[in-house]
């Protein structure tokens, strides 16, 4: 069940969903709320001509964060904007911090905006779900699938959140149901 704008605002008022700073009224639509682009991006370094490299997530010890720290540079978008050229991936974040307390019984999905999608801009790579219990800014995987550069500016509405009420409470919201218990023997 998707929350309407009224229910999202009620949940914000009740502290069941926290967005900091609170989005302005014009950021809401009937069933979503827009979030904006933070000025900081991580841009992938260019490989020197002749150098070949690949990412191997299956290697023991693979750590996505360490790898990304090594192969990207931090970049602050100037007020004049940043041209994302076709075919390029950059990492971005929302300016807003989102918190979905366990008690809220709400999960969310981050999705792109249709106006940006029509010029080829995607903001996530198949990982849209934000689970109950999440706290933080939302990392975006921004790709230009279009034929022309797309200018990214700080503060533009870059994505939208759709909130969904969960059916019942997840296991981790039931207080202490497994505390002090022992697991049933494994059945071989």
């Amino acid at each position, binding site marked *: 069940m998707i929350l309407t704008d009224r229910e999202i605002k009620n949940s914000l008022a009740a502290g069941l969903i926290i967005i900091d700073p609170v989005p302005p009224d014009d950021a809401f639509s009937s069933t979503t709320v827009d979030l904006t682009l933070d000025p900081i991006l991580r841009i992938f370094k260019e490989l020197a001509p002749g150098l070949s490299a690949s990412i191997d997530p299956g290697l023991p010890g693979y750590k996505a964060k360490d790898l990304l720290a090594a192969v990207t540079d931090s970049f602050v978008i100037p007020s004049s904007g940043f041209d994302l050229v076709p075919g390029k991936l950059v990492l971005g974040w929302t300016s807003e911090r989102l918190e979905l307390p366990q008690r809220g019984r709400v999960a969310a999905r981050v999705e792109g905006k249709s106006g940006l999608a029509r010029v080829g801009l995607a903001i996530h790579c198949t990982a849209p779900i934000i689970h109950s219990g999440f706290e933080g*800014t939302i990392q975006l995987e921004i790709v230009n699938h279009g034929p022309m550069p797309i200018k990214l500016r700080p503060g533009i509405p870059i994505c939208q959140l759709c909130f969904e009420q969960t059916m019942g409470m997840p296991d981790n919201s039931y207080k202490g149901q497994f505390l002090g218990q022992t697991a049933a023997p494994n059945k071989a």
Partner: protein
Amino acid sequence: MRLKVEKVGEGLHPSEVVVAVPTKNGTEELVIHPRSLNGGRLPIGWPVGSDGDYRLVELPRQTSRGSRRVWVDKKNLDEESVAKETA
């Protein structure tokens, strides 16, 4: 419920830090918001499973290896906050 973690570095963005979580299957790392950390402890939900001294808990975000639920030693769970939250 709070889980003892260790901050091991900064994230890719100022709104992120990286913490390490000792688990039954080795140390897992995940990115969290700095505000989530309180005295080296990370708020999590209640355990969803139990096996001897280990509890299966769900982390607020995926670890760098893609896990959401991990087995942690119960001694790393904040029993004091359990008492407070169940009171």
